[in-house]
Every structure is written in structure tokens, then in C-alpha cells.
């Protein structure tokens, strides 16, 4: 081996950066958007240039004609045996709608709670997005480039604004609750899911033909099922599970879809509730949080831990303040200070009753810290709590559940 090979191999094999699930999806949506623009403007010109090239040569012309006949025959045969439905048709149908109103249920405490979601779909690309999602725990209202997120329990309103909201960021937020609302998310699902299966059935109540689709997305440990009406091409029902086998109660069950309902403007308005704490993006705490995140990203965990602690101290009841405590634990964990990490995670857990995936994250990290410290019993408890916490949230699920199950199996096997 040459003297330089060890360093070269280290970089080749160990400098591995991977995109997290959220980042992967976010980037893909932007790429897909860009590609859509390309498809609409260029596809025809590419075909025309191929056509011109083909017509210039006699042999190419004959070959092209033969290929065309085979393709046409295949299409005719296909139409003769299957119900014509493709995701593209649903996406196209969604693009002609003005509003979607979805009703359904989601787990809450030991039972389920109702949710409702209204969306006004932009008729032109430049039109503002308007959306309202409402359930027992909170309300999200998106008004173009301003989004309000009211956390009912904490009576806290987070206001986010700026040009970055014009992209899909808040559609993602919405899609976590109702991934079938937008054609874009459906397209992404079709492309990314591992085991897309669709069957045609007749609805016994209405006699209408429906396409039943099931699929799963392995990286996030999520599976979905939805029903599309063959005639309208629109989604009629959607369910989502935080496991790959569609076992147990779905994490989300959207049972009613009302299209082009007359939704009053008032639905998309938002009034800050009396006494609510308002956190605006760009506040001092927010800037400090970003600085702390920058230190974390640079691998400067010792300074990051102090910065995150400062965020929590400055604004202990805010969104950032609560999240910062979890990050304090993560920094200590990276620094190998397991006892401090455990203490931070334990302090953080009571703060997260339902919010997103934080509770699950905190228990997962706590479990790992205990495991590294050799305290298997406590680690087991934490991983089990992680799994239990996951069932409480209306989210897309995560690979952490799978990892937590692996850790549990490993501990029990020892």
C-alpha cells in the first residue's frame, strides 16, 4: 500500500454525509418543481428535434414507424384490460380544483380526535396559498407568505414569514397531516414508495369503480392506503400508519374529502387568541438559536451547548427554548458527557407533551445515552417510551421507531 493510501481510503470510506429524511424530501420537491418547468417547455422541442433527425434518414424513418406501431398496440392492449387510472390523472384533476376540505381523525391521548383541513389551491402559480388545519392540539393557518401556528396547550402563536414560505415548506407541514391533498406530494409518493400496489374494486354503496392503493416508504417506516374514484380521478379516502405493515389504528384517517366546496374567506383568517405568547421568526431568541445551530453544524459542541443553554434560559417557554433543551442533551452526548446528556434529556421530556416528534426524539436519545452508559434497564424503558410516544403524534413517523425496536431486541437478547 502506498503511503498516501490510508488517508485517501479514509476520505473515500469514512467521509460519508447523508441527507436526513426531511432534507431528502424537501430537496426532491424543489428538484421536481424545476423539472416540471423543464418538462412543460422543453419536452415538445426535444421530440420535434428527434422527429426532424428521424425524417432526414430513410432507415431511421422505417425503424421509428415500427416502434410507434408496437407502442400503439401496447397502449390499446393495456386499455383493454385495465381501468385507466394513473397518478398523473389525479394530479391533473387536482389542478382544476379551487378548494379541498378534508375531515378525519388522528390519535390523541388514549383515543382519537377529529381534524379538519381546508385548502384553497392557487389557480395561478403566483397566487398565494391559503390553508387552515385545525384539531384539538392546535391550528395552522397559512396566508400566502405568512404562516401562523397556534399551539393551543401552550397558548403560543408562532408567526413565520418571508419569501421562503412561498415554496413548499408549509405544504410539507400540511402534508404531514394530509399527504394526499396536493398533487405534488402524491407524485413524490408514487416515485419514492417501495411497494406501490393498486387494485380496482367496486364501491358496494355507490356502485362506482375505485382504485385502492397501498404503499409504504421504508426510510420513514410509514405506510399508506388511499382510495381514488376512477371517474373523477380524485382521492376519496386516505389512511397513514407509522409502520410498514399498516397494522393497528392509522396515525391519520382522512375519511371525508369535499372538493370545490364553497369555503368562506373567514376560514383562512387568523386572529391571535387573547393572552397568547407570540413568537416571530427573527426575534432575538430565534437569532440566538440559529447561531447555536451554526456552532453545532460546525462541530463546535462545547460552544453550542452553552449557546443552546442560553436560548433556553432566555426564553424557557418558547418554541425555541423548549427545543434548545433537547439540543443541549445532544451536544453533551456528542461530547461524550453521558450523565449531562441524560440529565438534559430528562429535563426536556416533561416539556414535550405532544409537539411533533420531539418527545419521541428525547426518549430515543435518552435510551441511547443510557445504553452507552451500560444501563440497559433504563435504556429499555426509554426506547419503549419512544415507541409509545410515537403513537401519539400525527406525523409521518420515522426510522427512529425501527431503530428503537432494534435496540429493544438487542437489549432483550443480551
Amino acid at each position, binding site marked *: 500500500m502506498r503511503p498516501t493510501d490510508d*488517508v485517501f481510503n479514509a476520505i*473515500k470510506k469514512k467521509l460519508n454525509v447523508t441527507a436526513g429524511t426531511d*432534507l431528502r424530501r424537501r430537496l426532491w420537491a424543489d428538484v421536481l418543481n424545476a*423539472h416540471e418547468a*423543464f418538462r412543460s417547455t422543453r419536452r415538445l422541442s426535444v421530440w420535434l428535434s428527434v422527429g426532424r433527425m428521424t425524417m432526414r434518414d430513410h432507415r431511421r424513418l422505417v425503424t421509428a414507424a415500427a416502434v410507434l406501431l408496437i407502442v400503439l398496440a401496447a397502449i390499446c392492449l393495456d386499455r383493454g384490460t385495465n381501468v385507466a387510472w394513473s397518478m398523473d390523472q389525479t394530479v391533473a384533476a387536482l389542478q382544476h380544483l379551487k378548494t379541498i376540505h378534508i375531515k378525519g381523525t388522528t390519535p390523541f391521548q388514549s383515543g382519537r380526535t377529529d381534524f379538519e383541513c381546508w385548502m384553497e389551491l392557487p389557480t395561478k402559480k403566483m397566487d398565494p396559498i391559503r390553508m387552515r388545519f385545525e384539531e384539538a392540539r392546535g391550528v395552522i393557518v397559512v396566508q400566502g407568505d405568512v404562516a401562523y401556528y397556534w399551539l393551543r396547550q401552550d397558548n403560543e402563536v408562532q408567526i413565520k414569514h418571508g419569501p*421562503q414560505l412561498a415554496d413548499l415548506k408549509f405544504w410539507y407541514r400540511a402534508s404531514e397531516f394530509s399527504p394526499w391533498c396536493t398533487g405534488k406530494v402524491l407524485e413524490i409518493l408514487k416515485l419514492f414508495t417501495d411497494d406501490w400496489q393498486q387494485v380496482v374494486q367496486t364501491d358496494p354503496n355507490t356502485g362506482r369503480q375505485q382504485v385502492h392503493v397501498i404503499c409504504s416508504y421504508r426510510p420513514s417506516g410509514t405506510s399508506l392506503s388511499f382510495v381514488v374514484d376512477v371517474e373523477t380521478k380524485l382521492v376519496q379516502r386516505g389512511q397513514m400508519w407509522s409502520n410498514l405493515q399498516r397494522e393497528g389504528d392509522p396515525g391519520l384517517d382522512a375519511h371525508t374529502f369535499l372538493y370545490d366546496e364553497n369555503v368562506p374567506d373567514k376560514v383562512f383568517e387568523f386572529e391571535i387568541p387573547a393572552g397568547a405568547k407570540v413568537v416571530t421568526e427573527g426575534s432575538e431568541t430565534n437569532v440566538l438559536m440559529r447561531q447555536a445551530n451554526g456552532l453545532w453544524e460546525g462541530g463546535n459542541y462545547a460552544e453550542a451547548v452553552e449557546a443552546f443553554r442560553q436560548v433556553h434560559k432566555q426564553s424557557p417557554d418558547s418554541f*425555541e427554548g423548549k427545543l434548545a433543551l433537547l439540543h443541549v442533551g445532544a451536544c453533551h452526548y456528542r461530547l461524550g458527557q453521558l450523565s449531562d446528556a441524560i440529565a438534559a434529556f430528562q429535563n426536556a421530556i416533561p416539556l414535550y407533551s405532544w409537539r411533533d416528534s420531539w418527545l419521541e426524539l428525547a426518549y430515543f436519545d435518552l435510551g441511547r445515552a443510557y445504553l452507552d452508559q451500560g444501563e440497559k434497564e433504563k435504556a429499555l424503558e426509554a426506547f419503549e417510551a419512544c415507541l409509545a410516544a410515537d403513537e401519539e403524534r400525527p406525523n409521518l413517523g420515522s426510522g427512529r421507531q425501527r431503530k428503537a425496536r432494534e435496540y429493544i431486541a438487542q437489549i432483550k437478547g443480551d
Partner: protein
Amino acid sequence: MLKLRLRFGSREALRRIYEKHLDSLLSLAMGLLNDAGAAEDVVQDVFVAFARSADSLRLHKSLKGYLATAVVNRARDVFRSRHGSRTSINDVDLPDVQSRGPHESVVYGEEARLLIQALTKLPPEQREVVALRAKCDMGFKEIARLQGVSISTVQGRYRYGITKLRSLLNGELNDETNR
């Protein structure tokens, strides 16, 4: 074939290219910039530009080389803008709190972090050569074309770069790669 399908607007082809190259391009961008946010932005810009201009893709050229070259060029812009102007924290378009915490964003281990930090200490030209060779399997000839210098200059940069990395990383990495 994948490139041909992409030229004809195939989303599936684009997805396969995206899935295949995303992580290696992120690794390259991180190796060049040592900044997760900037690396994400660079890779996003590259893929978005790629998706927009799929018709200009040359079918006989290496796709990985094409994308890696785009990442290097974009990273150079970022590098230049960083060193060309000093901005206050409030002026910078900083990432969203929820998307850039320790639990989100790009994911890499402790050893990768050490390697990235060591790479950052190399002069940019050497860093590019080492990162492109190691993460994108790019040949000296191709790198020479990208950097606009002779092959022997690129080989020299690679040698100096690796030697410096070796001294920087001395004792930091375990011997796993030599086994």
C-alpha cells in the same frame, strides 16, 4: 439510457439520478465547505439547475463528473462570496430553526467530521483535488480540465494535499481502513 430518458422528461430517471448521487454530492460539498447549510444549498442549486436544463446534458459524458463539477463551481461561488464580503448575522439568510437542528439536516459521524475539518485546512485547490478524487472517483485529467491547469500540477496538489492531511489526521483515525 437514464440520461436519454431524462432528456425526454422522465421523472423516474430524474429520481434515480437524484437518489444515486445525492449523498455523494453532499459529502463532496461538505468536504469543500464544512458548512451543512451551505452544502445543502449548493447541492440543491445543482440539482435544480440540472433538472431545469436536462436537455443540454451530453449523453457521452460522465453524469457523476458533470454533477461533481457543478458542485465544485457552485462551492467556489459560495467560498468567494464568504471571503469577499463580511455580513452581520442578521443579513444572512439563515436556515429555519426547525430544519437545521442537531436532529435534522445532513447526517454524518464523528470520523466524517474530523475528515471534513482536516480537509478545510487545505488550500482550496488541494481540497478540490482530494475531494473529487476520493468522493467522485474523478481522474487527474478531468480535474485538470476543471481547474484549468496541467495534469502534473493537479498530481502535485493531490500529493501535497494528502501529505498535509496525513499530518493533520495523525492519530485521529483508527486503522480500520488499512485492514
